[in-house]
Every structure is written in structure tokens, then in C-alpha cells.
């Protein structure tokens, strides 16, 4: 009980380390592989000689030198240029376009998931509906995503990416994210499970007899677990966003990471993975702050009037 601050503190430390650790590990992995890093990143048959490339990309300074140079640039918003996917284009520009798009996609996907969570908490979504959500959740994102992509393509054409077509892709992608791979089903059943287990506690029964509501008693106690579950759901959506964005050709962070991977563009992958790490770190901070607030609320002595 006296060490309630350990978990939030660990999360905050993890949140600070994550955006540094991810690019650092990626860099080390490239050097850990057998062979010359410049040749691994861009084979000589594709990029010509590797000595010039190594110098241009600061690969000749070793992993520490490369990482120092990259991190110093990244802190000022300079993520270098794409090496293979869109040769010569500033990765920072790609990120500036991709991150807001992914955040919009996540926000849209969060609407049905959030409604599901609220419905489960308030009981407006009956437990009888859970099997339906479960069946819907069995659909893989690739299948629902293909259906959404086909609908968008039939309605707007394959090459339409602006205006209504852009929003159709975003809304379609958000619905796919929310309903496929058990995202909504997990959110609804997970939340319902948390609250129903807590509602069976004896103190809740006594509180109800005193005329208090179940929710006002259970919420403070399940809040840390609920926030943890919600973070896991957002991570789940972020993970799914890679597939959905690539399928529906939404210019988001997931599409950027996918493009970087499939084109073996280390510069793009490094930046995109770091952006994902920053988003994950932000989620950790939110969870830590929520845990601290709940802990302070629970420990606050009830006001008792003087006799």
C-alpha cells in the first residue's frame, strides 16, 4: 500500500526510455548482423559502391557515431532523407503528414470502441450482445480491410485520395480497426468483466444499501486496471493501423512503416518506429498520470464535519 507510486514511476521511466531505446536497438541490430551495414541497408548491386554510401549516411563512424548523428538531427526535426522508398525526400516531411493522419484514424476508431466501453460500464450494452461482438471480432483485418478497400475503390475509383475519398478511406479504415481482430469485442467484454467482478465485492453491496450507486463505488477501484486495458486497446489499434493504412492506402504512420520495411528503407523505418515509440510513450505517461490521480483520490481522507 505504501509503494503505490512504484508502478507509475516505472511507467514514466519506461516512457522516457522508449523513444531512445527503439532507434538505439534498431541501430545496434544493423551492426549486429553479419556484413557491412552499408551493404545491408542498400546492397551494392542496387546502390553501387558502399564506401560512398557509408560516408554520406554516417555509417562509417560505427553504431554510436551513426546514432549520435541521427539522434541529434531527430531532436531538431531532421530525420534525414529516404534512402530507397522515396529517394531523397525528407523523412521529416513524410512524418509530418503521416502522424496527424494516424491520429485521426485512431480517434475515429476510438469512437465505436469508446462507445462499447461506456455501454459495457453503464449496462446499456447487454451481455447478451457479447457473442455477436465476439463473432465480429473473429474477422481478421485483412478480410474486412479488403472489403472496405473494394467499397472505396468502387465508389471513388482506385486513384482517388482527396476530399470525400480521403474521408471514406479514413472512416472505412477506422471501422475495420474497431471491429476486426477482436478490438471492440475485447474492449466490451474486458470492461464488463472488470466492473462485474468489482460489483460483486461486499463493500459495493453495503454502499448500495446506503443509497449510493454501484458505479461511483467501483470506478475508483477499477480505474487503474481500466486505464491499463484502454492503453492495451490503443496499442492494439496502432498495431492494426499498419495493415489497415497500407490496405486502404491511407498516408499514415503505419503505411510509412510498411513502405519503409518492404523497400528496406532503413532511414524511413528508423523514423517511423521512433514515432510509434513516442506515441507508445505518450500512452504510458497517460496511464501513469491516471494511476497517480486515482491513487491520490483513493487515499484522500473523507471530509468529516466537526461535532
Amino acid at each position, binding site marked *: 500500500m505504501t509503494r503505490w507510486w512504484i508502478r507509475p514511476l516505472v511507467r514514466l521511466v519506461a516512457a522516457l526510455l522508449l523513444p531512445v531505446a527503439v532507434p538505439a536497438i534498431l541501430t545496434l541490430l544493423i551492426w549486429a548482423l553479419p556484413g557491412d551495414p552499408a551493404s545491408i541497408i542498400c546492397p551494392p548491386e542496387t546502390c553501387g559502391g558502399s564506401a560512398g554510401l557509408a560516408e554520406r549516411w554516417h555509417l562509417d563512424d560505427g553504431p554510436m557515431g551513426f546514432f549520435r548523428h541521427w539522434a541529434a538531427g531527430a531532436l531538431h526535426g531532421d530525420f534525414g532523407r529516404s534512402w530507397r522508398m522515396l529517394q531523397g525526400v525528407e523523412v521529416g516531411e513524410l512524418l509530418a503528414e503521416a502522424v496527424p493522419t494516424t491520429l485521426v484514424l485512431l480517434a475515429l476508431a476510438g469512437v465505436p470502441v469508446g462507445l462499447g466501453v461506456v455501454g459495457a460500464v453503464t449496462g446499456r450494452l447487454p451481455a447478451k450482445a457479447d457473442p455477436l461482438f465476439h463473432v465480429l471480432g*473473429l474477422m481478421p483485418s*485483412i478480410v474486412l480491410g*479488403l472489403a472496405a478497400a473494394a467499397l472505396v475503390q468502387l465508389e471513388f475509383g482506385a486513384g482517388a485520395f482527396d476530399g470525400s475519398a480521403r474521408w471514406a478511406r479514413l472512416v472505412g479504415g477506422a471501422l475495420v480497426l474497431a471491429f476486426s481482430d477482436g478490438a471492440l469485442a475485447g474492449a466490451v467484454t474486458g470492461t464488463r468483466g472488470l466492473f462485474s467482478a468489482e460489483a460483486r465485492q461486499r463493500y459495493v453491496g453495503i454502499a448500495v444499501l446506503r443509497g449510493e450507486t454501484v458505479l461511483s463505488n467501483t470506478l475508483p477501484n477499477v480505474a487503474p486496471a481500466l486505464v491499463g486495458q484502454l492503453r492495451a486497446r490503443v496499442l*492494439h489499434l*496502432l498495431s492494426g493501423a499498419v495493415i489497415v493504412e497500407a*490496405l486502404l492506402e491511407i498516408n499514415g504512420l503505419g503505411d510509412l512503416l510498411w*513502405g519503409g*520495411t*518492404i523497400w528496406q528503407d532503413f532511414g524511413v*523505418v528508423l523514423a517511423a518506429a521512433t514515432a510509434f515509440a513516442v506515441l507508445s510513450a505518450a500512452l504510458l505517461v497517460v496511464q501513469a498520470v491516471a494511476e497517480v490521480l486515482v491513487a491520490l483520490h483513493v487515499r484522500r481522507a473523507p471530509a468529516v464535519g466537526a461535532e
Partner: protein
Amino acid sequence: MSGAGRRFSRWPSGLLAAAGFGALLVFAAFAPEFLPDPDPSRAWQGPGEMPPFGADDRGRSLWVYATQGASILAWPALLAGFVVALLAVFGGVVRATGAARLDGWVQGMGEVVGALPRMVVVLVVALIVPADSRSLYPLAVTWALLAAPGAMDEAAAVAERLGGSRFVEALRAHGYSAARIFLLHIVGYNLRPVVVRQAAEVSMQVVFLELALSYLALAGDRPSLTHADSVMSWAGLLSQGYTWLVIDMESGHALALGLGLIALVTGASLAVSHAARAR
């Protein structure tokens, strides 16, 4: 229903699961090493004209897609399920032994491993695997390791509800051996439903992962991250079938086969979870 009756009621699910996974392994076993030569005169022939599944846009049998696709994913998916099952058992047993320090480390590691979106880690692993040795195995194992903390957590919660170390002490007091307590009572009777369900789900997720990665590679006209170019994944069926959806090509049978294979894997996964459920 009596215990024997309940056990009997699980038989259909068990048989269905065995049939589903058996079909997958049989498909994999019959996979030819290379794609057959194209025969344009047989392009898009239906299952009636070219049994059992019809032909693709180049007149090649879709049977090859089904078998080669199964050979890409069957064993990696099963391996991923096995890894998750093993780690879930570990998580449950650690909680049951009451080893608080180890349990804390396990939970801490789970938090760290689960801090990043899984697909990001999988794609980073795919990036560093040399192009000439690409396979689903490293991605499947990575996915399993990333999914393991959730499974370990759930198994640990089951062990805790059981009474944790007090349950073990109680059985020891009855004179049971450690092997009987942990293997039979904790893992066999209590952790089994969770462990099997988690393993089946992760196996299914690995299949979907392969489909998604291969489809996107095909759509981008790039080499696959999960298999050699001489082999066709089930994603090829979806890719061929997609043309039926958007430009009305005669490839509906390819889409039906692709969706059917996905349903087979999903059904087998559900059936195995149902067969292993608690009494």
C-alpha cells in the same frame, strides 16, 4: 450433466479441431516445391472444369495455392502457439509457487515487451532478416513472444484464483508429489483452458499475419517478407479474388477458397479452445 457426459460433449469440438489442423498439415505435406507452368487456355476455370478448386489468372490450379500457402504457415503457426503455451504455463506456475520476486520480474518484463505495438516490432524483425533467408518462423516467434505476456498474465490470474501457493501447500499436505501437483492439478486441470485458448488464438493470429503481410507485398509488387517468390501464399487467393470484387473478373472461386481457408483456421482455433474448456 455428469463429468463423463461433459467430457463426451467436448468430443465434437475435439474432432473438429483435429480435422481442421489435420487438413492444414495435410495441405502442407502435399505442397509442391515450385509453381506449375502457366496454361493460359485454362485461365479462371472454375472448380467444375479444373477440380478441386479451379484455376488462377494463368491457368494454374488453385490447389497449389492452398497447399503451398499451408506449407508457409502451418508449422510456424503451430510453433508460435507452442511458445505461447509454454510461457503461459511458466507464468501460471510461477504464481502458484508464490515466488514473489520472480513473479515481479515476469510482470515487469511483460510491461516492457507490451509497450510497443506488435506490428511495429514484427516489421523491424522482418527488415533485419536477410532477403535470401526470409521465412515466417522469425516473425511467428516474435509475435508469440509479444503475445506471451497477456497469456502469462491470464494464466497467473487463474493460479491466483486457485489460491496460489496455499493451493500447492494444501496438496502437498495430502502427500501429492510435486509433479502431480504442478503437471496434473495446476497445468492439466486448471491452466489448460487458458493455455490452450491462448495458444490457439496466437496460432490463428500468425496465420492472419502471414496473409496480411503477403497480401500487402503482392499488392505493392514487392518480394514477400514471409516466403520465397517461388511459393504462393493464401494471400494470392485473396489478391486474385479481389479483382472479382472490384472489376468483376471471373475469380470469385479464388476469393471463396481464400475465405474458406481462413474460416477453416478460425473454426479449428475455436474448436480447440472449446474442446479444452474447463469442466
